[in-house]
């Protein structure tokens, strides 16, 4: 009885373990290139790192795979998967150091598809284990901070300095911090202005049902315009505005750059916040509102202390959608010169330098993921009515 409870065949675990083993055995662990744009040579794990390191990696991955398939305890699953992630990451860093001739800054050692697939499967094993642990909102934030903190410490320490992405980073270090700040400013600035407009608009739509259809219909229509097209549509009128009014130009309004990006992101942000505000307010128990009225609360007091607090979790869900969506969309805004991490992605594509693409893409994904975790935790912490 006890044995069967502690060990259980796990289908998801088996699938991830299978992926990890395929990555380990059949796929290149790193790709070595003579310089940043020529095609490189694929190297398996044994060819890429010293034997002792390879044995460590194989052992860690095998343990994590076995645990993922048969062990039920989420704590053990998390520990083995996390340990494997750390060892695999250190191994790829070691491969970078081992394969780079001393003082050579032209050779590029890039993580191969095998490494990425390993990282992915092991990472999914770890997140699956975290989900099974059902951590509270605070613990989830702590886990996120720990993960980001450890990664940043490793980067600061120079652990990964010999890898190709970090080579690109070394070249672009000052621009990188500027672009990441610009990226956040575009995403958060458009979100902030959208919330200031969308919240009252949502309350209005809730109070005046006739308005609801028209407003939500219009915002839906905006949502269907592809991002690139919307940037394009905004270019002409903004350029005309800047030409006609020097003051507008002095304020930084131009056909390209930050202004059209913020406006487009603002427009995209409206629908989720307005729709969720309306939905959240509609979900408020009519009996609670009736009782509040019957006890002598004014309409403003009912909105402030009953309706909005009760609708807040749903409204925050809308804000979470917008934030994650915007962090992704800002990458595209680089096309119209708005800056942000997308700059690296499009430059990388232009130069067929995949490492530069990764320098833009990996932080974008990390930012979006962190924003989702943080806001989910906030929403759960705020919802006092959850049974």
């Amino acid at each position, binding site marked *: 009885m006890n044995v069967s409870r502690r060990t259980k065949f796990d289908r998801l675990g088996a699938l991830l373990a299978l992926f990890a083993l395929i990555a380990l055995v059949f796929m290149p662990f790193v790709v070595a290139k003579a310089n940043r744009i020529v095609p490189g040579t694929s190297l398996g794990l044994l060819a890429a790192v010293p034997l002792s390191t390879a044995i460590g990696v194989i052992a860690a991955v095998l343990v994590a795979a076995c645990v993922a398939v048969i062990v039920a305890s989420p704590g053990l699953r998390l520990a083995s998967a996390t340990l494997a992630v750390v060892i695999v990451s250190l191994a790829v860093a070691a491969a970078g150091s081992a394969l780079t001739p001393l003082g050579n800054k032209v050779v590029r050692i890039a993580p191969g598809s095998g490494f990425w697939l390993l990282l992915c499967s092991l990472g999914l094993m770890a997140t699956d284990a975290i989900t099974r642990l059902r951590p509270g909102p605070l613990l989830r934030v702590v886990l996120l901070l720990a993960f980001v903190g450890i990664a940043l410490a490793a980067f600061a320490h120079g652990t990964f300095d010999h890898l190709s992405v970090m080579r690109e980073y070394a070249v672009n270090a000052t621009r990188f911090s500027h672009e990441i700040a610009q990226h956040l400013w575009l995403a958060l600035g458009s979100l902030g202005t959208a919330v200031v407009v969308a919240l009252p608009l949502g309350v209005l739509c809730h109070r005046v049902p006739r308005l609801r259809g028209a407003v939500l219909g219009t915002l839906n229509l905006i949502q269907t315009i592809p991002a690139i097209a919307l940037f394009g549509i905004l270019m002409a009128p903004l350029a005309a505005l800047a030409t006609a009014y020097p003051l507008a130009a002095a304020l930084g309004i131009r056909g390209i750059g930050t202004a059209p990006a913020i406006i487009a992101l603002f427009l995209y942000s409206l629908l989720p916040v307005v729709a969720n505000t309306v939905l959240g307010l509609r979900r408020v128990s009519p*009996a609670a509102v009736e009782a509040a009225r019957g006890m*002598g609360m004014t309409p403003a007091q009912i909105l402030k202390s009953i309706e909005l607090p009760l609708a807040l979790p749903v409204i925050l869900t809308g804000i979470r959608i917008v934030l994650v969506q915007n962090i992704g969309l800002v990458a595209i805004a680089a096309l119209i010169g708005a800056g942000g991490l997308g700059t690296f992605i499009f430059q990388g594509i232009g130069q067929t330098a995949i490492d530069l693409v990764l320098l833009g893409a990996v932080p974008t994904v990390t930012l979006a993921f962190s924003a989702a975790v943080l806001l989910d935790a906030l929403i759960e912490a705020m919802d006092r009515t959850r049974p």
Partner: protein
Amino acid sequence: MISIENLSKQYGTARVVDDVSMTIDPHTITVIVGTSGSGKSTLLRMINRLVEPTSGRVLIDGADTAGEPAHLLRRRIGYAIQSHGLFPHRTVAENIATVPELLRWERARIRGRVEELLTVFQLDPATYADKFPHQLSGGQQQRVGVARALAAEPNVLLMDEPFGALDPIIRGKAQEDLLDIHRRYGTTVILVTHDMDEAFRLGDRIAVMSAGKVLQYDRPAVLLTQPADPFVARMTGSADRALKLLSLTNVSEAAKPGTAPGPPIPESASLRDALSELMWRGTESAGVIDASGQPAGCVTIEAILAHGRAH
């Protein structure tokens, strides 16, 4: 005292409440009973102006309720509804403190009042004050709803089908509690229900409504013995009306001088309960004692039955 004068409410062509006048004595429980759509809820909601009358007026202690802003009026009048309407994001204590907070009472006074009410409603403050509504049973939620309505010591308490969502056993207990509360605070209660038994159980006076009109407004016994209208007769004329009548009368009304063997019956018990007790014992009579436990004569089955006959 509450005076309702020629009160009407019209929605489009429908006259939901039609020229209702009635006077409600202080410290009494008045029950407005009627079928759904009779206008009873609308009538109640015009007293605290959740519904504004089309014509007519309501006076509380001589002052026209239209003379002050509606939200200030409502803070002086308790209001409890069927689905209790507790605020799900606020604790029990915060819910009860709603109106005192609106009236800006001092913190210590609010805390004292919340504890007092929780104790009165048999909810231990240490256990329940910081719980959320969803952690309570249906009966407890309903009690908190009534406690919240009474928090700011209103002279008048309006209740709109307050026990409608409760199962029969819990409902009986809640009705008992309401009578206790009424005895303790002397609040003037106006309660709307569709349940005639509830009306007879609680009401000092009962108003029977149909199609927007009050057909009869009188003491329960009068409704039984002298229905003013065929509809009232139908509403009150169930097979157990004789027993209902007995349940409205105290043993003291039927007691005669004398003594009888066996355990005595309190004079505050209803004749219905006394009859049941005598039948169970298989005796013809029993002694009666007053509230202080002193003998107060005796009561016989024959005397009880005489009170249950239509006069």
